[in-house]
């Protein structure tokens, strides 16, 4: 596949209370962004199990976005802090597995940040387009660095 024709596939795990609402607002405000993202709604970013992220990559995702409420705003008090810790750890794991850590992003998006949400999707799409397809999505395997 040539780089220019490459359209990344991104899976997004969005918390119901802030980020999913922010994604809705982008729509209500008709802010356009590339059609690269597929959103999965979870109640809280703290629900996002590292396994979900790894499985998404294993199944060919070129990028994974986890989005939750801003620090202090989590509907369940502290789920987003837990997400933050997990994602930091996961990025290390990805590196070990031979994937660029930039393919995984954790972002805070509030219910009034439709614009910010769209910008994140645009940025992420551009960044991953530059990186090219995930080695796994073109039939590769996790390649554990020794």
């Amino acid at each position, binding site marked *: 596949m040539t780089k220019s024709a490459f359209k990344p*596939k991104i*899976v997004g*795990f969005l918390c*119901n*209370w*802030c980020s*999913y*609402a922010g*994604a*809705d*607002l*982008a*729509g*209500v*405000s*008709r*802010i*356009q*962004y590339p*059609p690269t993202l*597929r*959103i*999965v*709604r*979870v*109640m*809280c970013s*703290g*629900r*996002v*199990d*590292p*396994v*979900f992220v790894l*499985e*998404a990559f294993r*199944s*060919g*995702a070129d990028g994974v976005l986890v989005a939750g*409420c*801003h620090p*202090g*705003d989590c*509907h*369940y*008090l*502290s*789920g987003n802090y*837990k997400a933050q810790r*997990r994602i930091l750890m996961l990025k290390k794991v990805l590196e070990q597995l031979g994937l660029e850590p930039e393919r995984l992003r954790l972002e805070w998006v*509030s*219910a*009034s*940040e*439709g*614009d*910010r949400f*769209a910008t994140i999707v645009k940025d992420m799409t551009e960044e991953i387009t530059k990186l090219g397809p995930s080695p796994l999505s073109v039939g590769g395997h996790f390649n554990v660095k020794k």
Partner: protein
Amino acid sequence: MLKKIGAVLVVGGGVAGVQTSLDLAESGFKVYLLDETSSIGGVMAQLDKTFPTNDCSMCILAPKLVGAGRHPNIQLITNAEIKKLQGEAGNFEVTVAKKSGYVNEEKCTGCGICAQKCPIEVIDEYNEGLGVRKAIYLKYPQAVPLVYTIDRERCIGCGTCREVCKADAIEIGSEKETVILNVGSIVLAPGFDEFDPNLKSEYGYGRFSNVLSSIEFERILNASGPYGGIILRPSDGEIPRKIAFIQCVGSRDAKIGNNYCSSTCCMYAIKEAVIAKEHNPQLQCTIFFIDARAYGKEFDAYYDRAEGEYDVRFVRSRVSRIEERPSSSNLIAKYVNDKGPVNEEFDLVVLSVGMNPPKHAEDLARVLGIELNEYDFCSTQTFSPLETSKPGIYVCGAFSSPKNIQESVAQASGAAAKVAGLISQEKGTLTTVKEYPPEREVSDEAPRIGVFVCRCGINIGGVINVPEVVEYVRTLPDVVYAEENLYTCSQDAQKRILETIEEHNLNRVVVASCTPRTHEPLFRETVRDARLNIYLFEMANIRDQCSWVHMHEPQKATEKAKDLVRATIAKARLLKPLPKPLINVTPVGLVIGGGLSGMTAALDLAKQGFEVHLVEREKELGGNLRHIHYILGSEDPQQRLTSTIKEISENEKIHVYLNTELVDVTGYVGNFRTTLNCNGERKEIEHGIAIVATGAHENKPTEYLYGVDERVVTQRELEEKLAKGDFEARTVVMIQCVGSRNDERPNCSRICCAQAIKNALKIKEVSPKTDVYILYKDIRTYGFKEDFYREAANKGVLFIRYDNENKPKVTQENGNLNVLVWEPVIETSIPIEPDLLVLSVATIPNPDNKRMAQMLKVPLTEDGFFLEAHVKLRPVDFATEGIFLCGLAHSPMFVEESISQACGAAGRAMTILSKETLEVEGAIASIDENLCVGCGLCVSLCPYRAIEKDEKGTARVIDVLCKGCGTCGASCPKRAIMIRYFTDEQILAQGLAALGRTPHD
């Protein structure tokens, strides 16, 4: 007497009105929620962030608005005002005039095509005139109800909207309606109006385009505001580098007749400055102020952070005038500092406008027959802060005095409790409980999925090829039926879905349309009507997150829509019916603490017919109120105390336990069991809720010779002297902030400024010749208390400011007390020889709070006060359900504020006690005991303490407490925790299907 009615009219749909409505509707009353505009939400819906936590205002408000909009017992009446009132407390007849919005509320789906096509652009009030909207419009994107309105003054009658509206909702001919409501009680929550800064012409508002009001600036800060969240100057769209905030515009200003302090502007200005700095760290923010009134819980910490961390500059000076430099549209602020007059240039000036009473206050008062105070706010009394002058009509929020969101919300719940006390016998008489047919057992059946794809007029259908999606869906596994609808949410579509479920024997339903955040409840109800468990339903969001954001890429949008629907179906295949078990509620309250707050809460619960246990560790009731002998502008507090105690002892629903402490608390909401130690004897009680009202203490100071020289006393000791009539002194010095606002205790004790002024005025009354000096950091007489500050100054009380670097020095010389204070205006230290030195000492948390917090499993603040569930919207709740908080245990506060909170706690408690059973959420965690190894990680992670270990050491979820956030599930090393409706399998299936895979690929 007329028969009482179990319905309530709430006037004003801001956050206070919405909270009252929700509390009442949840407790079994029918509520009419009236708003004069086209949607509820009030001013809070316009705010960007809220202090002191910088929460996103819309994020925390929207779920409440949706809840009120969908509540079966709340009827929204928008575009409406009250015309006439008849009847009496318990049975009123209210005549309401309702303007037409020219759009049929039942038919409008809120799709917004009309506004897109409308040719007329109009100034947008929601964005404070900084943006535009159309002549047919929604007040704001998240508006509840989601119904468009035609602004007839601007509409040119072209009829475009009628042509494009596929729902046939436009009714240009409809006119005003009159509605007659029969209600038992009325709650007034009309809020406030912003002060009109045009009246302060010296600041050039309206003439200089870069002078903004604070609420305009709030919109600019907001991501959905006029400039998309980028701070720009209106004059030229440039990014400003220097912003000035000017405080007290329209407040504390005798010239314009607003003598009072608006109570919130200091904090919101600090917040706006902090948020602006977060947007652009290079920005310089300067706040010009007189006194920094950061008096609330944790407010001073916020203020300190703004100054220290965010580098916001604070200048204690009143700006006398703003001039514009025509060449650059920059602004010159003229003010005086200790060196003399200054002219300083800024790019943008924000005027912190005060709160005025609502515009229609006088009309409202006339129609309802209630009294207003001298400033046209609703008149209330210290010991009845929620009652208007007319029985049966209550008030909450900013209408009775300028106040912030947290206090408005506490009052709102309090007003609900007052209403319930009045018409408690009528509970449940006018509310509807919907009966559903029994659920069909589907567990053994293979999935049979029905899919409904919505065109949403042209919102989806105009971009996405809906027939193609439907065709595609039909090819997916387990899908036995698929169709498209013009509007899947319309009334007739619900009927179709219901019939289709029956006809095709569907056992899973997927709707591909808009967002579940607004529409899931509707569809869940429909599938439930069709005898399916509500958790057998799922939604795919192909509008807000697809057609609307890919409007110019129809083909890609169609592909994405297929992916999204396929993913949702993959999850739907794995859906399981979930039980929503019921738990019984013991309709009994426990109130811990027998001071003013505790007694008030107990009485309010008892008036509704609930049994209450009131526990006090001392040998008598009364708490701190026993030491308050007079209150400015109030009846005699001691008389009030006596009558309240009498009322308690005569109320047979209230069981008082003196000399009693809590020993142990077990159980959960609805079913607590508490062991008491009464005078050495053990006693067990069962209760459904608990209210913490354990009060606070006056600190005993260790500085300024207190305890060394007996002429040094605390304010409370002075009050005691004045009350007993043994006050004698020619010169009195009072020192403020003793033990508050220092390194050890950074926060303000809130009540001491007014307490000092109260005692100073009393001294001037009994001994006019006595000189009184008050040495202060900031005088924080917020709200109408400002009047007493002015009175004290007029009566000759001398106010001298000091700061932490120049604290007063107190010494003893030749038997005389000597106070040396630095006078900043004349720049010298002046000696005063008082015969009485009065210290305004800190209010400190109860030392027992720690033990209590552990027992109840609730948190404390760093200062040691109890920490509420949410500063703004749950000010008297704990995160642990069924436990509430009020009074000084929360933070230092005045009598009327303690009462408001106590009623608020009772109001929140009644939403539980009024129900025979509580329904447990079905989408919660459950633990497989065979897999659990008892590591306890989930127990420590759960923010709601909903997981405990049983005798075998296995973790167990307490269903009633679990909120389904799923944090435990994501952390369990043994994968022993299942989060229902969001199981690992379901989420994985959905995620992978979106990528075109199945988990087994």
